[in-house]
């Protein structure tokens, strides 16, 4: 097959698409575009959910590596020593402790059970973007006592009746209001609400934060233990590297990366996502292949006499086959371009209107690799679908084709 033959095959293909049935071309391109969108939409959405969950877990629960009490212990002990050790390691940006205590909040007639997390507010800013999520009031300072920040769902809305609430709240707490907090150890304190935040991560939004100093007052002793220590890795250092470093340098507590935690908590869900993605991909490929196969089969059957004539005047069967092959290639490329355009539109729409649930919010997570991979898969499927009928009809003898 020389350059001239390919040029003629391309000319025949182009003219057939330009001057043949326009509605057939539009419909075929539309179907390929839709199939591409279908192939990429669901995986991107699932990826978005995974990314969202992972990011929120990193931001509000783990950092990059979580140090939790070793088996049989309730707390990470020798906090000062452990923090000093971790913060001195090369791959660590900052390690900061969390101490969680159950409490009952009372505001006017509302009573609500809430987890209170004690944090070191300044260190926390290196690990978590919580301080950027304030929707009212201010973030905590290191020395704050008698002040608390609470999640938006805890604060509630004064305009929503209790029976209409998705989850129980304090019914409309505002910055500056006073809430009474009764801790599990029997200590009760009135707090001024310093700020209200909204992270989109339900675990964090359903909690309240106080400073480490405040919790020491609540417990009535210096606090040298933590429920967990969240560790942020420096840019360029992997979670696994930091985890191994911590273990190597003698952190005796349980050390887990975000990936470790995700595989334990959401591994099954992510596996289900992968299966659904695969099914969706296979269905899309089958639809595209069948549609293109039908389109090209109908085209070739309707053109059998013309194919016979072309062969009669000296057009080689390879040229005829590639003519239909080029038609499929052009249709597939146009369909894929349309599909990418539709997907981008959806991505923009979902950036503006993300899927929001009480637990997480997600947008489409698209990578160039996803687009390239799906484009190639669809392109190969289209080639197979187009070339099979083209090959069959191009092999037909002239007499049979001309009599059609």
């Amino acid at each position, binding site marked *: 097959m*020389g350059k*001239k*033959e390919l*040029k*003629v095959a391309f*000319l*025949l293909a182009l*003219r*057939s698409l*330009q*001057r*043949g049935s326009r509605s057939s071309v539009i419909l075929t391109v539309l179907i390929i575009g839709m199939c591409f969108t279908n192939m990429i939409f669901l995986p991107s959405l699932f990826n978005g959910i995974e990314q969202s969950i992972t990011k929120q877990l990193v931001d509000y629960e783990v950092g990059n590596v979580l140090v939790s009490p070793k088996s049989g212990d309730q707390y990470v002990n020798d906090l000062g020593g452990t923090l000093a050790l971790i913060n001195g390691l090369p791959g660590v940006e900052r390690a900061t402790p969390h101490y969680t205590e159950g409490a009952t909040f009372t505001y006017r007639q509302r009573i609500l059970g809430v987890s209170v997390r004690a944090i070191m507010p300044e260190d926390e800013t290196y690990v978590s973007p919580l301080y950027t999520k304030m929707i009212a009031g201010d973030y905590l300072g290191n020395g704050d006592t008698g002040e608390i920040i609470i999640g938006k769902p805890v604060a509630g809305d004064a305009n929503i009746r209790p029976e209409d609430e998705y989850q129980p709240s304090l019914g409309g707490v505002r910055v500056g209001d006073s809430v009474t907090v009764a801790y599990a150890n029997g200590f009760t304190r009135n707090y001024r609400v310093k700020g209200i935040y909204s992270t989109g991560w339900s675990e964090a939004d359903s909690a309240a934060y106080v400073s480490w100093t405040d919790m020491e007052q609540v417990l009535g002793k210096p606090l040298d233990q933590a429920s967990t220590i969240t560790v942020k890795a420096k840019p360029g250092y992997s979670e696994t590297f930091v985890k191994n470093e911590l273990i190597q340098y003698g952190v005796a507590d349980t050390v887990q990366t975000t990936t470790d935690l995700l595989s334990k908590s959401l591994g099954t869900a992510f596996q289900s996502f992968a299966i659904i993605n695969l099914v969706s991909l296979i269905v899309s490929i089958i639809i595209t292949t069948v549609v293109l196969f039908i389109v090209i089969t109908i085209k070739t059957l309707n053109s059998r*006499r*013309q194919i016979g*004539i*072309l*062969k*009669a*005047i*000296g*057009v*080689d*069967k390879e*040229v005829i086959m590639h003519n239909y092959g080029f038609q499929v290639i052009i249709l597939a490329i146009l369909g894929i371009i349309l599909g990418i355009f539709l997907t981008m539109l959806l991505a923009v729409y979902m950036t503006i209107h993300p899927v929001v649930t009480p637990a997480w919010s997600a947008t489409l997570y698209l990578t160039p690799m996803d687009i390239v991979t799906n484009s190639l898969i669809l392109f190969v499927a289209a080639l197979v679908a187009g070339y099979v009928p083209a090959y069959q009809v191009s092999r037909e003898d*002239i*007499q049979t084709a*001309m009599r059609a």
Partner: protein
Amino acid sequence: MIEIENLQKIYRMGNVEVRALDGVTLGIEKGEFLGVMGASGSGKTTLLHMMGLLDEPTSGRIVIDSTEISHLNDYEKTMFRLYKLGYVFQDYALVPDLTVMENVSLPGMLRKDRTEKEYREASIDILTKIGLIDRQDHLPRELSGGQQQRVSIARAIVNKPDILFADEPCANLDTENSRMVLDLFREINEEMKQTIVMVSHEDWHKEYFHRIIRLQDGKVVSDGKCGE
């Protein structure tokens, strides 16, 4: 130019055997304008298709320009048709999605010994000759039947084939257009010494032929110069 020996074509439809050609032996000289005539079903088109390498004989031998056709493989036959033969069909058989110019240029585009400039010039020359240069950008459906057949002839001769085969080229045309097409064939034959083999069942066409063979039941029943 063409030597045919004891050519047979037998179609089998179940248990029924149809002898479309039954031992045809024939020679055609270069520059001849040969008419193949006969009643419907006499084997005219079958003979034309055998000579034009569009169909395989059941037995017998065809030699064109010293080339034994049965020795050629599928690709060689395609190239033989492209370089040495031209065809004009009853229903014009133009590619509907190509313009007049593209239709006429198509065989030239595929020839390895023709540059784009050469086949374009040849197409322009031939379209000028048949009086359709002003219609070069039109699609076949925008032309009359007579014009389409002239384009079909232009496509057939643009490569300057050794032999031009025409299968009832006037069957779909009125008398005026038929005469125009036949005049064109005569002109090509006389000016370019083009060998033409034309199938026809119209008796008045014979005035254009140098020689006529008549077929009946797949056999040559007469072979003679026009007027003999």
